[in-house]
């Protein structure tokens, strides 16, 4: 039996496969299809201090091998989350991680502080990469000084496992990985969506109400893989690979490029059982290859 366990900071994951924020709701949406507890973890919907209605419809456009979204962090805010969603989440026997978003550094820090007290939330994912909000989000993830400031402020108040979710909409991803490590993050996760757009030539209008949105799905996998490889070479903290993973083979590519674990995102919209299938596929691969643990192949392309 290959050992699938991984560790990020002091936090143990039963396997390296998680479901990505914004693609798995709060877990219960998938209860009819999978046992959430079999996952390494779930990163629940991006949460903000105040409730957000998100962007106007239309918020989604299908593209070649992918989709654009412009949801814009629709959520009911941290108070509602703590009171109405957390009690259910605290029942799951897996790592439930909350993705947090602020308009300002102070908001990020306040959110992190609020989440510290929730014993069943062992980690947060600092989202400095949402491309669909006017303030905050990607602005922090594409400016080195802003990234440094927000990560440092959150680190000061949050002492559990801190993951920083990076934006691919930068020239040099390794710089942002280094900043995250330097400011004390326990891991980086990447990539968030790539900024893109689509136009309906019949109506001669943009397909998204916001004109631009975030591209996800297999269309972005080669870019994501390259960035994960670059980030993994740049830092010693764990890197979590995200971007267009549809099956175990895709996930194995990220692991071989240097990712300690992966997040399955858009694929779950098409096949809600994808993350579970990825776990069993990784397991079969390791066993067939005679590997004792997943760590034996992590970053294998970078060795010699």
């Amino acid at each position, binding site marked *: 039996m290959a050992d699938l366990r991984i560790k990020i900071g002091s936090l143990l994951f039963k396997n390296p496969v998680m479901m990505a924020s*914004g*693609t*798995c*709701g709060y877990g219960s*949406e*998938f209860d*009819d*299809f999978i046992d959430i507890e079999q996952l390494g973890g779930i990163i629940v*919907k991006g949460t903000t201090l105040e409730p957000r*209605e*998100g962007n*106007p*419809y*239309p*918020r*989604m*456009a*299908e*593209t*070649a*091998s*992918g*989709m654009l*979204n412009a*949801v814009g962090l*629709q959520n009911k805010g941290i108070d509602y989350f703590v009171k109405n969603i957390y009690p259910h989440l605290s029942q799951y026997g897996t790592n439930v991680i909350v993705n947090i978003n602020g308009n300002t550094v102070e908001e990020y820090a306040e959110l992190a502080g609020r989440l510290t007290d929730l014993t069943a939330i062992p980690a947060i994912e600092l989202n400095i990469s949402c491309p669909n909000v006017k303030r905050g989000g990607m602005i922090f993830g594409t400016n080195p000084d802003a990234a440094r400031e927000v990560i440092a402020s959150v680190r000061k108040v949050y002492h559990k496992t801190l993951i920083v979710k990076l934006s691919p909409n930068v020239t040099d991803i390794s710089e942002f990985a280094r900043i995250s490590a330097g400011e004390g993050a326990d891991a980086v996760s990447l990539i968030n969506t790539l900024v893109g757009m689509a136009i309906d030539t019949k109506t001669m209008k943009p397909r998204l109400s916001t004109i631009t949105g975030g591209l996800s*799905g*297999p269309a972005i996998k080669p870019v994501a893989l390259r960035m994960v490889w670059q980030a993994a070479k740049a830092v010693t903290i764990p890197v979590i690979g995200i971007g267009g993973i549809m099956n175990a083979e895709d996930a194995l590519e990220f692991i071989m490029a240097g990712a300690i674990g992966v997040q399955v995102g*858009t694929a*779950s*919209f*098409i*096949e*809600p*059982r994808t993350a579970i299938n990825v776990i069993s596929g990784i397991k079969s691969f390791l066993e067939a290859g005679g590997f004792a643990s997943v760590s034996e192949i992590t970053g294998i392309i970078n060795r010699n």
Partner: protein
Amino acid sequence: MKKRIEDLTVTENRRLTDSFFVLKVTSSLTLPEILPGQFVQVLVADSPSTFLRRPLSVHDVNVTENTVSFLIQVAGKGTERLSRLTQGEKLNMIYPLGNSFTLPHKGEKVLLTGGGCGMAPLLYLGRMTKEAGAEVNFAFGFRNRLRIPEHKEFKKLGIVHLATEDGSEGCKGLLTDIPALREEKWDRVYSCGPELMMKAVAAECLRREIFCEVSLENLMACGIGACLCCVVSTISGNMCTCTDGPVFNVRNLKWQISG
């Protein structure tokens, strides 16, 4: 109601017009309870340009045959591929999804309005309406007579009023020009079709204070309430068309219409 993900088998694929076809599938298991207004998300196989599943509203359910059917209009590459499915082929479906129409009470007089492929969910709704002991009437609008799919199944359930924009069949004009809609007394009106048509029906119902439910066809990705892409603006904020809908009472929608 537990949702399933399952490979169903095509038992029939029947062309009705140039663009309309009826696809019927069966399950090796007993079909779950499916309510009128609910939909399924189908996977379009061997079609690289259709990345996401396609939502299809349930056209009819036959419990004895253990089949569910869909009335589909070819609109793009996904529906084009579905139109070529042959008997025995598999169709992967996530179902049943969404809420359902509120069924009328016994003795009520009900009008089911639809435009184009919006007539799809109204057959099953009509069947259940009749079973509930209410009087079923349909009103459909089309561009011209060539666009009208065969509708004898509808005629078995009640009167069918037709409108065509060019007057080649039924009353000339839009669905809302059908005199019965404005002149007769209705206990409930249901609608599915293009948004402008549903808004016109809704306006008439709000004006006359008639109960009115519409089924929306917002673009969606997941169909299970996870992605939040298919939202509609309601008096309670943004709601998911896939899980809070697709059926909404028009009083709850923030449609800019004059009642």
